């Protein structure tokens, strides 16, 4: 079957009334949960899973996928307006999106992220259509050592995103890795740092960490500081339109971000969009001619990661659909949905269920179009949220966080952990530690350790395995370069840093 025929089949499948409806439902739910801090897309997908048992496989996947990439659109909205990442992958959007909205450019930031999301998704979908089979083959050639080195690079990059204090940035990564250790060790079954608390056996939930560090800590430091009305953005149609300068500054970063995101998303086990958006941010900051503007409202600092996390959300379907290897927890749930309908994920899906594969791919395009159309008029609504006085807004945020965290596992302990981590996190942030690299360390920590130990078992204790494999060596080489550059930078005389939040 050639490409054109495949796309025709996909179009015919995706355009049935039923699939269109589920697509619309999925992306709308996705966008809403993305906007609401505290309800991750993971929670939404798991909660809606049972519903999909009663609809055909294609419709079920179309809807679940819609929630997933719809949430990527919504996630950045809360990041920009409230400095609260609606999803983990949009955490990095806070760094420049929130300063932009403090400068009164919230509307423009939302417009840019919407367009970046659309471009990033389309870019990745085209790659998915053209290259799914050969890329799947490439992903299969990744071994544990390669995963390990790739994650090392990602973590070093995340640490050096840090604003002028790379040593503390790296320390934040290590802190995150340490929190990731809590729970039962997968390799030996030993309990680590659980202090005998049964709720900690399973480790600390990512939502808990993200909500404590990005949500509650931010509320604590903003109370009393954000005068009412300080955030009042006038929402005229003009203020939604990015200036010519902002357009110019976002064009290339969107495309570069899309490229980085697509590439990272293809690799299984990279945790969906989080790593992609961090990488894209780091790349953008490195090649920018004005790196000092990053963290203070640089347009490229939202355009690139937003393009990247959406691209990654789409391209992570490549290993999921062609190999049956889930890139993250959401993908794992989608595989579950496939199997419940009696479809074995793996290389056979494309050939044996072409209407499912191609229908899903075409539905991605339709879903993104719906999101684009839905999102632009809604920007005004989202910006209006800012006009609620902060002293009334923050109790709502705290309530949403409490309800969201509790709903995750119905665990009171999780809610208490949010309180604890928020208290400690606030102090750490005051000391200059950064939440975003910490979070990435936390996400990648368990995978990093698992792959390290597995590589060493496979190499029978020879550390050279990381240098002997070309893919791994290349990643480590890049990480070492970055590290040297960072260490050299931190010991050379400092520019006067401005410290006012």
């Amino acid at each position, binding site marked *: 079957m050639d490409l054109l025929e495949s796309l025709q089949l996909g179009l015919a499948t995706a355009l049935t009334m039923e699939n269109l409806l589920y697509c619309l439902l999925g992306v709308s739910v996705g966008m809403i949960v993305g906007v609401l801090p505290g*309800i991750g897309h993971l929670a939404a997908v798991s*909660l809606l899973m049972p519903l999909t048992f009663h609809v055909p496989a294609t419709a079920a996947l179309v809807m679940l996928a819609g929630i997933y990439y719809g949430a990527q659109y919504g996630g950045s909205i809360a990041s920009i307006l409230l400095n609260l990442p609606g999803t983990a992958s949009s955490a990095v959007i806070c760094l420049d999106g929130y300063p932009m909205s403090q400068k009164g450019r919230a509307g423009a930031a939302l417009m840019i992220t919407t367009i970046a999301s659309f471009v990033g998704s389309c870019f990745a979908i085209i790659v998915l259509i053209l290259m799914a089979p050969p890329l799947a083959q490439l992903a299969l050639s990744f071994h544990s050592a390669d995963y390990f080195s790739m994650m090392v690079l990602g973590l070093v990059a995340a640490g050096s995103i840090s604003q002028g*204090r790379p*040593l*503390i940035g790296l*320390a934040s990564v*290590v802190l995150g890795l*340490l929190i990731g*250790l809590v729970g039962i*060790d997968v*390799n*030996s079954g030993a309990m*680590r*740092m659980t202090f005998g608390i049964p709720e900690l056996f399973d480790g600390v939930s990512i939502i808990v960490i993200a909500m404590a560090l990005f949500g*509650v800590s931010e*509320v*604590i*430091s903003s*109370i*009393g*500081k954000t005068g009412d009305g300080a955030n009042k953005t006038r929402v005229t149609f003009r203020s939604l339109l990015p200036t010519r300068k902002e357009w110019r500054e976002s064009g290339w970063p969107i495309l570069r971000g899309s490229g980085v995101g697509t590439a990272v998303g293809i690799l299984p086990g990279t945790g969906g969009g989080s790593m992609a958006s961090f990488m894209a941010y780091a790349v953008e900051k490195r090649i920018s001619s004005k790196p000092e503007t990053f963290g203070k409202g640089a347009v490229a600092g939202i355009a690139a990661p937003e393009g990247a996390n959406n691209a990654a959300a789409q391209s992570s379907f490549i290993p999921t659909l062609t190999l049956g290897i889930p890139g993250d927890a959401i993908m794992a749930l989608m595989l579950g949905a496939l199997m419940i309908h009696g479809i074995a994920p793996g290389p056979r899906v494309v050939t044996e269920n072409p209407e499912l594969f191609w229908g899903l791919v075409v539905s991605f395009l339709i879903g993104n179009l719906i999101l684009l159309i839905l999102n632009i008029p809604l920007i005004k609504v989202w910006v209006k949220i800012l006009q609620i006085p902060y*002293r*009334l807004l*923050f*109790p*709502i945020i*705290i*309530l949403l*966080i*409490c*309800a969201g965290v*509790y*709903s995750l596992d*119905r665990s*009171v302990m999780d*809610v*208490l952990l949010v*309180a604890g981590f*928020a*208290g400690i996190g*606030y*102090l*750490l942030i*005051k*000391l*200059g*530690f950064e939440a975003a690299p910490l979070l990435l360390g936390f996400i990648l920590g368990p995978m990093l350790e698992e792959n*390290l*130990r597995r590589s*060493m*078992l496979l190499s*029978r*204790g020879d*550390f050279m395995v990381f240098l002997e494999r070309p893919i791994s060596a290349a990643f480590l080489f890049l990480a070492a370069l970055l590290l040297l550059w960072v260490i050299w930078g*931190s*010991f050379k005389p*400092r520019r006067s*840093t401005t*410290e006012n*939040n």
Partner: protein
Amino acid sequence: MNVLTSKDFLAGLVCVLIGSLVLVVASDYSFGTPRRMGPGFFPITLGTLLLLLGAGVVLSSLRTHEKLPPLNLRPWLVIPAAIIAFAWLLPRFGFAPAGLAVVVLAGLADRNANKLALLLLACVLVPAIWGLFALVLGVPIPFLIWS
């Protein structure tokens, strides 16, 4: 300038302290060999790394003189307390009292809180958010637990 008010010095110190703490806790876990790493290998490596990074930060702090910004003390105490109140009330009395408590208590973190406005806000929001989670998303959270 006093090192105890230097932001970097304190940050470095925190790293050194946490790093040492991790080393102490992790010394209970078996370290293993490079081939068969025990559960202690990774934490001990990380603890050491954090200790070294902390030392580096302390050293570099001798050349920077950035003062620790003042803490937002009242919210720092009140907000976690409100969340703890939510966690305590929810399993005992249900979402309505827990939600009411968290909105009103958290609201008090702002010195200029308007208590009546907070109460009204809670009365509208708590049922709405409960509806979203319990009815729309289907999470079984009791609105009220009668005992």
